[in-house]
């Protein structure tokens, strides 16, 4: 089995060919080791980083950005977004604070991705 992919690990966007033989995956066309990991993962079970926002009170803006600590299974993205809809925080908050631990048993945490001060 051969599969053509465009690597999304970095802005370079290498064209990666993933080959599978007896359950062993190999990649060609990737310029780095991360492209190899991505190509194989994408062929078995695609994963994506998730970024979104949550409600924040007492800050200079209404929304606070969040990010997953690692890529999540593609099929879980909207489920995690639904969980984030119910989360509210109050300023001050500090970057990298965990707001969802081991979300959907994925081993991935959701982190606050900037610090926000309290506004009076």
């Amino acid at each position, binding site marked *: 089995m051969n599969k053509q992919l465009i690597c999304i690990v*970095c802005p370079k*966007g290498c064209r990666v060919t993933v080959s599978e033989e007896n359950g062993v995956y190999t990649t060609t066309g990737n310029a780095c080791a991360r492209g190899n990991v991505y190509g194989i993962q994408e062929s078995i079970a695609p994963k994506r980083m998730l970024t979104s926002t949550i409600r924040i009170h007492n800050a200079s*803006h209404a929304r606070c*950005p969040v*990010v997953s600590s690692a890529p999540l299974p593609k099929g879980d993205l909207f489920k995690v977004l639904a969980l984030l809809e119910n989360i509210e925080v109050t300023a001050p908050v500090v970057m990298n604070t965990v707001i969802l631990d081991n979300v959907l048993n994925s081993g991935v945490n959701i982190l606050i991705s*900037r610090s926000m001060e309290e506004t009076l």
Partner: protein
Amino acid sequence: MKQNKVLIIGGGSAGLACAIKLKEQGIDDILLIEKENELGGILKQCIHNGFGLTLYKQEYTGPMYAQLNIDRFMALGIPFLLNATVLDITESKVVTLCDPSGIFEIQANVVVLAMGARERTRGNIGTPGNRCVGVWTAGNAQKYLNMDGYLVGKRIFILGSGDIGLIMARRLTLAKATVVGVAEIMPYSNGLNRNIVQCLLDYDIPLYLSTTITKIKGDGRVEGITLCKVDENRQPMPETSFDIEVDTVLLSVGLIPDNVISEKAMVELDPKTKGPKVNSQLMTTVPGIFACGNVLHIHDLVDHVSMEGMLVADSILTYLNHDTDPKMIPIRAQGALSYVLPQTISSESKTVLLKYRVNKPMKKGILKLISNDQVIMTFPKVDLHPSEMQTLQLSQAILCKMDYNLVVELCDE
């Protein structure tokens, strides 16, 4: 009149990087001016990840990249003003400012232009149709959604396939809007390949190439658009037109360096980059006024913006310590290049990082460095794309071969 050695206009990635490097090298008399109510610039609203790979070998989200720089800036105790805007700069570097305390003037030895860019609007591209509500620039919609929590529409069409448009297609989909499609007037996308994959293909959003919007319809609010294929001269072909029902149109049709203030200081602009003409030290045509980041030319990666800020800091140290007047050698772009930066190379430069963009996608090409009609170096190039800024490091060995009438030319193999 208050005096400052270095006045930096803009607290985004370029301004912050410049201020941090200056302070680290012992310049204390700095003042950074920011017009918004917090530092960080445009990255605050770019909540997606993918920033910092070149500079930090790690991927951050936009707000994270900004936060790391803000934290370093604050730890160094560099003076700054928020909610402050520059009204005027003279050639002698008298800067008129306005902040909540009122209007005042500062005499600066050095001014750093780091004001970033603005989005091109419907007026810039002249899209015909009704003047109804629901036509937004992509960056504006991004700010409303990611910072204020407002979704600009429910059924959205995006004109322009630059990275902001692609990123917003995904973001709006995740925010439960329907993105009906993205149209691009060119026969190729202007965004990074990775963004076509992870923003459009992942969510089955169609990309219409060689297509533009020829009409926006709506009584009060946008109700629909007419799309039309364009020919090789980018002229609409009416027989190919079709209508789509949408309530919102987002425009992602390019950025323009924000040089309203630069022009007041009589800084010369380059018609191609729309930013100041600079030498290899990133000094503009007005001595003591430097430029870095999107105000100089539009970047696709923030890493290069930060690096330009740092280069300006180094150049300022040289400028303040030496009263020299180096010979400036003009350099121009030719062939398949839309521009090359800097526009002049100082004879005193040890190394120079040339930046250029191609004006069409090219699988293979040869980049030639020409001095006085003699080709002094050639560089084979592969996979060149207008949306990706290219760089070329010129070592001292190459620089000493460069004489006058410098040309960078890209041609087919």
